[in-house]
């Protein structure tokens, strides 16, 4: 049954997210983003749903020791980085 | 050129922008009033049906499990065994209450088979719409009142073949547990109810005159829940 399999997978994914969310909001967030170091409780609670949804991305950043949020990627920033005008 | 510029974190917006903003807020609030008025007024599906939720009553009568569980309650003054048999043979002298279980389930016919044709008392909540009545029976509240008496089946009167156009509804919701309880918005719920054993009813709406409710059964008088669910269109 496709629908049942889909829902079970979704449930497992979100459950993993919840398990990951606790250590992340307490410790992980400030590791990958220094501005989260002194975030109040409200902030930590507010980001939990998002952490549950996007945990693989955050887990990878935390695991690979990323210290700062990424720089956005657009034509100007790419051109500035490459050092050549397009 | 008007050089006003809005900055959200400033305490106050520039006067021109503030004026536009006030107009916009008024428009939005008008929407917040007008739209619910229009939509609430234009609803057509809500009928007159009742579920006496929270008001459990006692009922006594003869329980039948065929084709779907129901309780025959003699009209006042016809209360003894002999009249009951006559009641079954002439339905006009008794009220029939369809019996269903709580939530989206019919009464399990196997578990009440021992009461079939017997006088019973039970507790439950009344559901009704038009001249149709139903009881949501409290679990394990059925008691036989007169274990000896068993009443035979009513005689079958064939009315011949008819073609009828209508909507199959789950009787429990349509008769009152949910109002509105029919058409597409209710379809998934109806499918769950019929799957759970609630008797399927063919609702035939007439141009003039009251709607007709026809309990759907197989040719040999058995429930047809499965057939209703798995037949196409």
């Amino acid at each position: 049954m496709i629908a049942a399999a889909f829902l079970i997978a979704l449930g497992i994914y979100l459950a993993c997210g919840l398990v990951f969310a606790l250590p992340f909001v307490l410790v992980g967030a400030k590791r990958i983003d220094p501005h989260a170091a002194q975030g109040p409780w409200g902030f930590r609670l507010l980001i939990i749903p998002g952490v549950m949804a996007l945990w693989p991305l955050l887990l990878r950043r935390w695991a690979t020791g990323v210290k700062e949020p990424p720089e956005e990627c657009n034509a100007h920033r790419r051109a500035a980085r490459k050092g050549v005008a397009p | 050129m008007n050089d006003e510029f809005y900055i959200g974190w400033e305490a106050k917006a520039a006067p021109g922008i503030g004026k536009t903003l006030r107009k916009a807020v008024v428009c939005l609030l008008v929407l917040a009033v007008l739209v619910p008025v229009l939509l609430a007024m234009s609803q057509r599906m809500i009928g007159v049906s009742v579920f006496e939720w929270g008001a459990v009553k006692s009922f006594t009568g003869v329980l039948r499990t065929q084709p779907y569980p129901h309780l025959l309650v003699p009209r006042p003054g016809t209360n003894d065994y002999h009249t009951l048999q006559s009641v079954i043979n002439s339905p006009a002298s008794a009220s029939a209450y369809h019996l269903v279980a709580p939530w989206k389930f019919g009464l399990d016919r196997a578990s009440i088979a021992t009461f079939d044709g017997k006088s019973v008392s039970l507790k439950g909540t009344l559901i009704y719409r038009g001249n149709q009545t139903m009881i949501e029976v409290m679990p394990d509240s059925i008691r036989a009142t007169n274990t000896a008496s068993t009443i035979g089946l009513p005689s079958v009167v064939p009315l011949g073949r008819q073609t009828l156009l209508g909507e199959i509804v789950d009787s429990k919701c349509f008769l009152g547990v949910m109002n509105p309880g029919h058409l597409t918005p209710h379809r998934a719920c109806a499918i769950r109810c019929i799957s759970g054993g609630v008797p399927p009813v063919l609702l035939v709406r007439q141009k003039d005159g009251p709607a007709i409710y026809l309990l759907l059964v197989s040719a040999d008088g058995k429930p047809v829940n499965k057939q209703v669910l798995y037949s196409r269109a």
Partner: protein
Amino acid sequence: MGVEYVSVQWNRQKKFYDAVLVGGVAAFLVIFSVLTKVLFPRVTDEIMLIRAFGTGAFLLLHIILCIGPLCRLNPQFLPLLYNRRHAGVTCFLLGLIHAALVVITYHAGSDTNPILSIFVSSPINGSVSSVPFQPFGFFALIILFLMAATSHDFWLANLSAPVWKSLHMLVYVAYALLVLHVTFGVIQGEGSPLYVGTVALGLVTVLGLHITAARREVALDSESRLTPHASRPTESQSLVTSSPTEDEFVDACAVADISENRARIVCLSGERVAIFKYEGKISAVSNVCQHQNGPLGEGKIVSGCITCPWHGYQYQPDTGASPPPFVEKIPTFNVRVKNGRVFVHPKPNPAGTRAKPATIDGSSRREEAHSVTGNSESLVTLAATKK
């Protein structure tokens, strides 16, 4: 923001915004419910609430979707955009309550798992009324959840604005799903012309505003597109401006085209560039705000800083860096002013790099005066004299 995250950065405008939002939503829910109860006293309360919350969420989504194009057509509507995320989160919460009530009322207490029932309880039999409309609502709700869950600035910073924006563009998918949800759902039952008309009017409004705004945007963009090679100065100008073209500076606009403390937007190097004029100087920065990629060129210089029209993030025009303690940075461009024209080098400097502002000298100012009169001949003459 470049400072510590907080739950919500409250300020007076946001409180006003939220008061209107909560007041409007409450009015909607109360009016819908009370009127339904008065007109149809036998209605089932759960279904009444399902309808109140569903339609409320759907109306709010329409409003949210219209704010974007409205602001592009008239910046006076920008206050509506300022705190739109709270409207979005509210819309999700209304949809969530609607869905929860539906699951409890229509799916729970049956022989099937109530969530699974959303998917398996609508067998298709070929008729319009059998199209399973509830899964549309489910997927719309998932999208609204993703958007609401990532609405905090933490997510903007950690996903980066372009990724965040793409995620939030899914709102259009959600809207389409909900139009289907309603069309194949409640409209199949509640077929009154008023009901159908209201939904249709909503769709026409959302589409109409988006098409109008998009058309204008395309027109403006094609007007202001510059490329280093295609836009060689015209013959009369090349007389006097040959030197900038040699090192690839591009003639962007006339100094006089820019009003004081405002910008002119041109397209250069694959993205828009905002050229600001302030205090007798010209600076050019990437038009893309680091916060939510708002159009900085539609902003204004306020107390010496470029201020974004969307949420008021600020950048110093010469360095492209936000004033401390904030840490946002955008790319800058080298600029020159010659003979009343602004020349921009197409190669952006790394974000936060100072580019010396070009001074509008006396002669340029006089030329400005001339070119305002539209007399291009005198411009050439004047420039030639100067040489």
